């Protein structure tokens, strides 16, 4: 029945081929225009699993305590000493400039120049204090000496001033939405403004500006992503050369490339139509679409050419190729699409976007490369296509040797090797790390400007961006009760004693210090007073801008400063927090994970590792069902899936060996790899399965499948692998990681399809042979 449907579809299509082509052109013009409207787009909230319990705590309290979306700007004096007029003048200008950049939450800008930066000191009759930079400050010797003294008294060395007095810090929180227009903050534009208005304006031989924070990172990633265009061009050139070598025909080189590029244009245009921007993290999708398009295009031109060589007219050859490839190609592409759609199960915005944009792109390929391509080919004249008989013989010899994999003797060897590889790979794969394994921003290389800035700041200041915040939710005015604060104090102490936690801060520990202050600065009084009046006195000194409490102190975060943000570190701390919280939680007081950059990472890590198994099940489930439908054979389905599964496992082992953690950027690779890898198996087995069901011996069936599609499969695997391997040189670390993994997946999946698949077939259909 399916055959009948395909045949009548072909008849209609080829009868109206001009109209079909014209409508494709119109659609391309329309979507091309849409694609030209596409904007780079990165939003912090897309990168986090918003429905994760930690993130719900995060979102709930984001308004009061800011979130993880802040930036830090360190202004460095290259002489190593900030106490000079030029530096202070510059610092003031940087502060003012930062304050007025759109998107900055102005109440949360902190620096030496912000009015909330004050010092307090104990004197005989109580306290004395004032702003660190006095109202009448002049950058003369006297003024600088006063400020230097005040800095010491305010205890801000390490936070707002570098430990070695070589730099000063400004920090700001970003708003998610523009308060005037209500539009989402354009992170990349914001990053550009930072770059121009701060670094561009103030950096010189004496002053260096170091900027870190999600927005800046997104901006730098976007900049790096622009390099993708170059890789795209290189890949197109390489692919064109390879396709030409394969087809020996300019026409047959240009057509599949054009159709694949058309798919890319459609995919980009559709992004605008559905209202997405192009996120730097999913900038690789168009590339994948192109690669997959070429892969199917090559199958198509191969099929047409073979028929022309066999003596058919080009039009008839195209129509016949269309008929024979629509089903396997369609199934393969549908499996890709469904495979990508399974990524929707992961509750992280950016992965969902990737899922949608990739499945759109792959769906489009069905139209451009399975339908349009044969129609266009049918207008060409390939009658001069021929194959050198000597060469033909050579290639057939290769296929003859390869077909031995489908004999029981070799099958045993292949399957034994596969089993051993699988076991070794599986053991390695279980050691795969979750999350980011290195310091700084994982998307960027260790020696990128952003990461160097990060290292400068962590080296020169006692602050770290590796902060996890545990939110304490309690009743209103909870901080006036000794019992409540002492619970927090105990929590802070217990968690502070966890390996990986460098230091901690909370209202409880600050209240103790303030209480010592009220007792003449005597450290022996660094306790939580038992009486409410004394507690109120101590807590009352802590403003809500400190981020240690909300307006009615029903919410009091505990800040945990970690030594790094490696997944193991986070996991140890998170487990300890959960354990201590379970013991201390009561009706009146709960400790809740989590906010802060590392809190977000903890949630992301958990979401990613939880998503891994379901994602695999969905991807394989989808591939399984589609194969079952198209082959109508369980054996054939399993023969396609086992090599895929072994390769996925080996890819995970590779991640372990290369220290690539399972993260938001690498998680989709497995699904993408499975989606693309399945193509090879489907093309080969779809040829084989007919012949097998007609009773042909396995080796012969495999040989004929190789003759028909083997060169296209091998060629595609090599072309895609060479194309993605250029990512290895990318400015973006995550792109490099993806490049390595995809190169591996493309190549090894191809090998799996021509080595393991026939061996499995030999096993499954051994009665027939």
């Amino acid at each position, binding site marked *: 029945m399916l055959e009948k449907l395909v045949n009548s579809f072909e008849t209609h299509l080829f009868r109206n081929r001009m109209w079909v082509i014209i409508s494709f052109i119109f659609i391309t013009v329309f979507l091309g225009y849409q694609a030209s409207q596409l904007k780079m787009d990165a939003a912090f909230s897309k990168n986090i699993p918003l429905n994760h319990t930690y993130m719900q705590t995060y979102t709930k309290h984001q308004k009061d305590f800011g979130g993880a979306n802040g930036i830090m700007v360190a202004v460095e004096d290259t002489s190593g000493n900030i106490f000079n007029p030029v530096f202070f003048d510059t610092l003031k200008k940087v502060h003012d400039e930062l304050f007025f950049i759109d998107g900055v939450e102005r109440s949360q800008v902190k620096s030496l120049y912000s009015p909330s930066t004050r010092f307090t000191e*104990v*004197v*005989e*009759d*109580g306290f004395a204090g004032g702003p660190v930079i006095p109202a009448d400050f002049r950058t003369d010797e006297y003024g600088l000496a006063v400020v230097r003294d005040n800095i*010491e008294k305010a*205890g801000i*060395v*390490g936070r707002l001033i570098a*430990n070695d007095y070589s730099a000063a810090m400004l920090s700001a929180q970003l708003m998610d939405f523009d308060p005037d227009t209500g539009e989402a903050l354009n992170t990349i534009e914001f990053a550009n403004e930072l770059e121009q208005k701060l670094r561009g304006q103030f950096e010189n031989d004496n002053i260096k500006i170091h900027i870190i924070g999600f927005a800046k990172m997104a901006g730098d990633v976007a900049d790096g992503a622009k390099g993708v265009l170059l890789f795209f061009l290189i890949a197109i050139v390489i692919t064109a050369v390879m396709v030409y070598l394969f087809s020996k025909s300019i026409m047959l080189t240009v057509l599949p490339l054009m159709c694949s590029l058309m798919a890319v244009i459609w995919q980009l245009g559709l992004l605008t139509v559905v209202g997405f921007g192009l996120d730097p993290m999913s900038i690789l999708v168009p590339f994948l679409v192109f690669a997959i398009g070429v892969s199917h295009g090559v199958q198509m031109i191969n099929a047409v050419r073979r028929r022309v060589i066999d003596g058919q007219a080009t039009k008839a050859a195209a129509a016949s190729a269309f008929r024979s490839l629509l089903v396997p190609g369609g199934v393969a592409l549908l499996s890709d699409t469904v495979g990508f759609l399974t990524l929707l199960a992961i509750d992280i915005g950016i992965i969902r976007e990737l899922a949608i944009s990739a499945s759109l792109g792959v769906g489009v390929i069905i139209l451009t490369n399975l339908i349009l391509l044969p129609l266009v080919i049918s207008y060409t004249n390939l009658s001069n296509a021929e194959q050198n008989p000597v060469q033909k013989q050579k290639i057939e010899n290769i296929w003859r040797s390869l077909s031995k994999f489908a004999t029981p003797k070799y099958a045993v060897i292949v399957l034994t090797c596969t089993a051993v590889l699988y076991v070794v790979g599986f053991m390695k794969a279980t050691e795969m790390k979750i999350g980011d394994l290195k310091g700084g921003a994982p998307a960027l290389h260790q020696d990128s400007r952003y990461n160097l800035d990060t290292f400068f700041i962590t080296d020169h200041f*006692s602050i770290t961006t590796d902060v996890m915040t545990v939110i304490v939710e309690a009743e209103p005015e909870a901080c006036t*009760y*000794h*019992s409540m604060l*002492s*619970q927090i104090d*105990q929590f802070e*102490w*217990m968690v*502070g*004693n966890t390996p990986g936690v460098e230091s901690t801060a909370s209202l409880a520990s600050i209240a103790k210090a303030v209480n010592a202050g*009220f*007792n*003449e*600065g*005597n*450290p*022996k*009084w*660094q*306790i939580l007073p*038992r*009486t*409410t*009046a*004394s*507690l109120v*006195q101590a807590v009352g000194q802590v403003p809500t801008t400190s981020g240690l409490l909300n307006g009615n102190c029903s919410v009091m975060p505990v800040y945990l400063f970690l030594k790094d943000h490696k997944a193991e570190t986070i996991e140890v701390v998170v487990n300890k927090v959960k354990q*201590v919280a379970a*013991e*201390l939680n009561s009706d009146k007081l709960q400790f809740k994970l989590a906010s802060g950059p590392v809190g977000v990472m903890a949630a992301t890590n958990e979401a990613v590792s939880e998503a891994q198994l379901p994602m695999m099940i969905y991807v394989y489930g989808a591939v399984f069902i589609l194969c079952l439908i198209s082959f109508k054979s369980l054996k054939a389905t399993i023969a396609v899936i086992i090599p895929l599964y072994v390769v996925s496992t080996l890819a995970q082992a590779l991640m372990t060996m290369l220290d690539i953690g399972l993260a938001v950027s690498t998680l989709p690779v497995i699904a993408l790899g499975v989606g693309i890898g399945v193509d090879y198996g489907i093309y080969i087995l779809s040829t084989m399965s007919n012949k097998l069901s007609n009773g042909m011996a396995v080796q012969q069936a495999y040989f004929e499948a190789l003759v028909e599609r083997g060169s296209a499969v091998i060629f595609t695997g090599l072309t895609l692998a060479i194309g993605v391997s250029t990512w290895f040189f990318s400015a973006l670390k995550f792109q490099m990681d993806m490049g390595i993994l995809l190169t591996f997946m493309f190549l090894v999946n191809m090998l799996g399809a021509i080595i393991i698949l026939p061996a499995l077939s030999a096993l499954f259909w051994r009665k027939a042979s």
Partner: protein
Amino acid sequence: MKVSMLRSAVAIGLSACLYTASVNAQLDPLTVQIQPQAQSSLLVDIAKAGDKLVAVGQRGHVLVLDQQWQQVASPVVTQLTNVFFLNEKLGWAVGHDATIIHTNDGGLTWSLQMESTVLEKPFLDVRFFSEQQGVAIGAYGLFYRTEDGGKTWHDEFHQELLFEEDVAYLNELKQEDEELYLSERAALLPHFNRIINLDADRLLLVGELGLVAVSNDMGRTFERVDFDYDGSMFNAITHGEDVYVMGLRGHVFKASNALNDWQQIELPVESSINGALVDGDDLYLVGNAGIILKIDGDKAELVARRQGENIVSVAKNNKGEIWFAGTKGLFQLPK
């Protein structure tokens, strides 16, 4: 300021006490106490116990240095403020919630002798004159004495150290309202910060609001010494023939044994001085803002300044190692 605050706090404090009844029932106190960070968090006093040093601090932490610092279990979780050893075996430590704990094995094991959250006052120092006789002093004139090695403690009220106007006020109140009289009396004396032996029979007591007093009868009665600075004195030490008292905002005074010739020593810093150590001919002072000073006659020299911590105590063991304790725990100076 503090006095008036406490007056108003009394009533509210009672209600807060009811609230604290079920504090931390869930966490095992010993687990909470014995933690790796104990050595690097707030420790406020170090004392010598024979060849060992014993340090005490927040959460009832007690650490003993034999070969290396080792935390030992203590019966309390409130902050300890001072530790005193009569000899290498017998020692006492005091702290907040009017806590007194005792060891008879050189600091390895401790037992509770006294604790009272109702008093709402910390002990700030403890001193024993013999195995049986000792005193513990603290905030708002807190003064307890034992005659039986700490098995029982009895409070003493040192009326003689009240200011004159307060005496009159109290006498008036006593007639009108006995209860209020007692609660007011409990808040009117200055903090007693430190008590030392000037010699076998004379004690020196220093404290809040320029309190410097001597006693010739083992602390049963004191007499204020003429002293014209009214900031708090946190510590006192004898060095040869001289007596030094030290306290708020870098105020250090020196007098001869007769205590009638006070002379201020100019310091290069304005930080409060908390601790002192006599090492041979040298006198070391430590204090807030991480300062370590060496006093040579009338001259003070800044030896070191540690960023971001307050130093509270300093001691030297028989091996000649000098250890400091403060808000970031125990440390030695780099050689």
